């Protein structure tokens, strides 16, 4: 027993054998309470530091926009995973006031976003039916739509007709008719309609397009393009039973059951499958960078792996587009598969003077440009800051570098690699949303207006058609026009 003097005994006892608390017991008993107080102090300080960091991140933009940022009342229509990503990005954009959140999954998505926004001081109301929201919230000026694809047309058109500007997630619609009606509604109402191909506002993509390709023409004649989005197998999305949406609501909004509601991207008539979800981002870039729309498409795809009962669209798609660019013909390959995530996602543009490897990711393939050995020197562009100095290959890779193999003289020498010196430190969707809200305030033009989104939808939706018909399909130039253009 410790404490020879007996002071450490749990409690002194009376002769009746009962314990009594003495002063020492109380003091010892409370002796560690200050530690909790210290924790509380440290916790508060830590949070203050975090908040200061968050404020500092927004401050330059706020300062830049100070004075002339008109507050815009916003609603979110569709508060699922993508809606939450957009909300997070929007919270970093100055001058937005959230007014309403509409989602049929009240117990989960809607509540989560509403609670988050309230925590940040937005007075938001939750709605299940978008029509009720439009009726009751006349102050809303702009609606951000992140509902499943098959709802986009109805939602976007109704919002524009109610006088709201619309930011609508891609794919613009799951049908060309829907997409066309959206373009027409935007023209009729004169409202802004930005489609969520967010790479169009990404500073790195803009730098590559405007500076490296158009101004410096570093790639020379682009003849081939290659790109992919490979994703590892992922379990179907589920939902805790206690949060399930009542069947009547699901049926009313076009879903067979909770599983279909959560996994709509895989169902025909609701989404477009991986080629539309993933491919449309990158195929949009093909057309943008090549400066033209494709003339033909050949595609092969199938449901090779996933359970056909819960997956209707193709889990594996390989596509070849033909282009007639202003510089000459080009071919572009694209693949998406959802059974292996090897190499992730990227786009590669290959010209006779160089190669551009780019992706939206800041971690994997954030932007490299390779100079073909026969191309003119790029030093002037390095000095201008358009590209980085050539990256010296690291010599430590024993397996590849020091293999002792003798290079064949006919083998192409490895091209120099230069980094594209533009990074996006904000969330990926923030610049595109910023562009939209700048346009709402009359200070910018949309980077991806409805017409551009429509062209992209024409190119992408045709892939599924080509797979079904198993033939090479042709595009006519007028296919990319809605009609009635000025």
């Amino acid at each position, binding site marked *: 027993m410790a404490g020879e003097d007996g002071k450490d005994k749990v409690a002194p006892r009376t002769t009746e054998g009962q*314990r009594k608390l003495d002063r020492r017991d109380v003091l010892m*008993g*409370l*002796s560690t309470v200050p530690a*909790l107080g210290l924790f509380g102090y440290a916790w508060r300080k830590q949070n203050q530091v975090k908040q200061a960091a968050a404020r500092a991140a927004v401050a330059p933009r706020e300062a830049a926009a100070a004075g002339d940022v008109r507050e815009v009342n916003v609603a979110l229509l569709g508060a699922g995973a993508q809606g939450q990503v957009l909300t997070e990005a929007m919270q970093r954009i100055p001058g937005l006031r959230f007014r309403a959140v509409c989602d049929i999954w009240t117990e989960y998505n809607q509540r989560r976003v509403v609670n988050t926004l309230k925590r940040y001081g937005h007075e938001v109301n939750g709605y299940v039916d978008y029509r009720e929201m439009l009726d009751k919230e006349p102050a809303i000026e702009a609606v951000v739509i992140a509902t499943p694809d098959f709802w986009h047309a109805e939602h976007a058109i109704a919002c524009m007709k109610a006088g709201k500007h619309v930011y609508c997630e891609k794919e613009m619609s799951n049908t060309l008719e829907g997409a066309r009606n959206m373009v027409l509604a935007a023209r009729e109402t004169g409202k802004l309609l930005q489609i969520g191909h967010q790479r169009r506002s990404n500073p790195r993509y803009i730098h590559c397009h405007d500076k490296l390709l158009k101004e410096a023409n570093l790639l020379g004649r682009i003849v081939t393009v290659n790109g992919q989005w490979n994703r590892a197998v992922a379990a179907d999305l589920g939902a805790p039973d206690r949060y399930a949406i009542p069947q009547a609501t699901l049926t009313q909004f076009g879903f067979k059951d909770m599983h279909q509601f959560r996994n709509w991207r895989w169902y025909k008539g609701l989404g477009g499958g991986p080629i539309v979800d993933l491919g449309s981002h990158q195929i949009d870039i093909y057309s943008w960078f090549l400066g033209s729309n494709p003339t033909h498409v050949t595609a092969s795809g199938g449901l090779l792996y996933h359970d056909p009962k819960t997956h209707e669209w193709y889990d594996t798609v390989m596509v070849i587009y033909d282009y007639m660019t202003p510089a000459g013909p080009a071919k572009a390959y694209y693949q998406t598969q959802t059974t292996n995530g090897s190499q992730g996602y990227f786009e590669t543009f290959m010209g006779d003077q160089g190669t551009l490897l780019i992706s939206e990711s800041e971690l994997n393939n954030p932007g490299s440009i390779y100079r073909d050995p026969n191309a003119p020197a790029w030093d002037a562009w390095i000095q201008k800051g358009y590209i980085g100095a050539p990256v010296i290959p690291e010599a430590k890779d024993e397996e590849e570098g020091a293999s002792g193999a003798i290079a064949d003289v006919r083998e192409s020498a490895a091209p120099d690699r230069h980094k594209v010196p533009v990074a996006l430190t904000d969330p990926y969707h923030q610049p595109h949303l910023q562009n939209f809200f700048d346009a709402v305030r009359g200070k910018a033009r949309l980077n991806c207006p409805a017409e551009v989104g429509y062209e992209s939808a024409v190119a992408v939706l045709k892939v599924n058609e080509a797979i079904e018909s198993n033939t090479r399909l042709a595009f006519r130039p007028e296919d990319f026009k809605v009609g009635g253009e000025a």
Partner: protein
Amino acid sequence: MMAETRASHWAMVGITVMRVLVGWHFLYEGLAKLTADSWSAAGFMKQSRGPFAGFFRWLASDPTMLAYSDTITMWGLSIVGACLILGLFTRLASLGGIGFLMLFYLCNPPFIGYFYTIPSEGSYLIVNKNLVELAALVVIFATGSGTFAGIDRIVHGLWVRKPRLARA
């Protein structure tokens, strides 16, 4: 009675300091998860390896079970942490903490022949920090340090009034 297993006065002071530190760590781990925008144990459990990998992956893949796991982890860690700092229900809190750490340990055990990319800040062979913290909680449990310095001492004095013979 605690006293039989209790160490010397300064040893008990040391164990109490250790208890507060472990509690601090638990409390912050819990509160950080509670206040994060969307924390979930799914990522951690999906990476599970070793003999119990099947169990953890099942937990992560079933939305209902995952929701329970997340809630229990967030609140459990916070409550265990606060109790350890205060020395309140110390033995129960120690057991709870041991349970959590056992689960964390078994989810990604640093067994021979396993190579992890997480955690990234150290090198471990069989013993990792989870196991060390678990061992610390075993000591705290065994010595019942809350009745030495902690609210348990007051609780004991107030509520545990079993007649006993006073020791000489």
